[in-house]
């Protein structure tokens, strides 16, 4: 263990406003939510001497607010809280499912949705569900706020589009229509407590005549950031899902992702499995 606690500077705001002010004054401070990502690096001695902006006292960001049309999840809500929330389980089941696959129960109890997004790992398990649910991320800084679609928040491997002094306030999701088909699947390095090799979420909406009204399919661990398969989605919209069309859509998958060989898996495997998952999703029924 190489972390040096005595070397750290700690900022502990008691309110959101105070947090934003402190962050504006110390833009190189590291915002800390649940710590499940950051503390791993800290334990390895990679953040000694840094300033930490501790967010754990900001209770407004720990709330889940449900309305008739959607849900707002505070940045500091944990993966455990999300997966047990009745409204999320009923209306956004893919998100609930994803939260239940992140690490073991100990990680789910501490890791937060906002922290996960800010960490911007290419392998974030909640990101494909958030992408197909077209989540929006509300950002706040001193005296300002803005809302970005989730996909615009991610800028690269562990990089976000957050400006200096900006913190994630909450994640908003409008409840989708009831889909004809929905699926979440994580292919990990083992059965539990694993990093994904590829992770997929899909929503399929059908018209009354059996055509595809809309399909949304997202993949994680297949590119520096989560990706929607826009090429395949565009091809499928408004058409009848014949096996020939499905095959064409599956061929287009490669256009929207760029998987690599790394310590956990290979490009070839990731592509093949993602194609299989997409094909299975489109062919079920």
């Amino acid at each position, binding site marked *: 263990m190489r972390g040096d606690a005595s070397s750290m500077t700690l900022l502990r705001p008691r309110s959101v406003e105070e947090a934003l002010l402190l962050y504006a004054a110390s833009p190189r401070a590291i915002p800390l939510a649940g710590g499940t990502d950051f503390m*791993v690096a800290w334990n390895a001695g990679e953040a000694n001497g840094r300033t930490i902006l501790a967010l*754990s006292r900001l209770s407004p960001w720990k709330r889940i607010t449900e309305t008739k049309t959607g849900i707002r999840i505070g940045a500091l809500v944990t993966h455990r809280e999300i997966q047990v929330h009745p409204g999320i389980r009923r209306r956004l089941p893919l998100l609930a499912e994803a939260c239940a696959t992140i*690490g073991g129960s100990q990680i789910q109890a501490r890791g937060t949705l906002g922290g996960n997004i800010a960490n911007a790992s290419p392998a974030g398990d909640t990101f494909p569900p958030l992408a197909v649910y077209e989540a929006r991320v509300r950002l706040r800084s001193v005296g300002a706020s803005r809302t970005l679609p989730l996909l615009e928040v991610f800028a690269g491997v562990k990089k976000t589009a957050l400006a200096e002094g900006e913190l994630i306030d909450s994640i908003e999701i409008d409840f989708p229509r009831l889909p004809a088909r929905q699926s979440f699947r994580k292919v990990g390095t083992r059965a539990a*407590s694993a990093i994904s090799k590829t992770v997929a979420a899909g929503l399929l909406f059908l018209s009354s005549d059996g055509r595809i009204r809309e399909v949304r399919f997202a993949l994680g661990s297949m590119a520096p950031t989560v990706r929607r398969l826009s090429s395949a989605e565009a091809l499928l919209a408004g058409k009848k899902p014949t096996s020939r069309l499905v095959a064409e859509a599956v061929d287009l998958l490669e256009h929207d992702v760029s998987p690599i060989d790394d310590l956990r898996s290979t490009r070839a495997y990731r592509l093949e499995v993602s194609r299989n998952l997409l094909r299975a999703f489109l062919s079920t029924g």
Partner: protein
Amino acid sequence: MIELTVNRKKRRYFGPPFKRLLDVLREDFKLTGTKEGCGEGECGACTVLLDGEPVNSCLVPVMQAEGSRVETVESLQASSRLSPLQQSFLEEGGAQCGICTPGMLMTAVAHVRGGGPADRQSVRTALAGNLCRCTGYQHIVTAVVETAKREKKRRARAR
């Protein structure tokens, strides 16, 4: 100064607020029962209960536990008697080298206290964040299942 409740006693900690809860427990409060296995939040050997929930104490700076209730393996036994869960581990062979045992017990006790399902698969799912290299888990699962069953019976009788 950070105040927190550890094993039902109010404790005060005066050191750097970013010290890990794991190290505060082991070094400042001399509760060495909780172990470090990886420092990555993967093995669960450092599991303690934070406000009743199992967490990896190697990933919690102590300031995040301010005002909270922490329970460690040392809280399980009643003076010199092993708790029902500990006794079950002893009878079923749930501990071999013992290094994963404190963390395993804390995750298990939360599952039992929370009225978690007593079937083997649910227990395995609850313990998926605790690695053991010695037992292959089978005897651990038996110990927790037996304890959960007995606890459910006890609660049913009490009602």
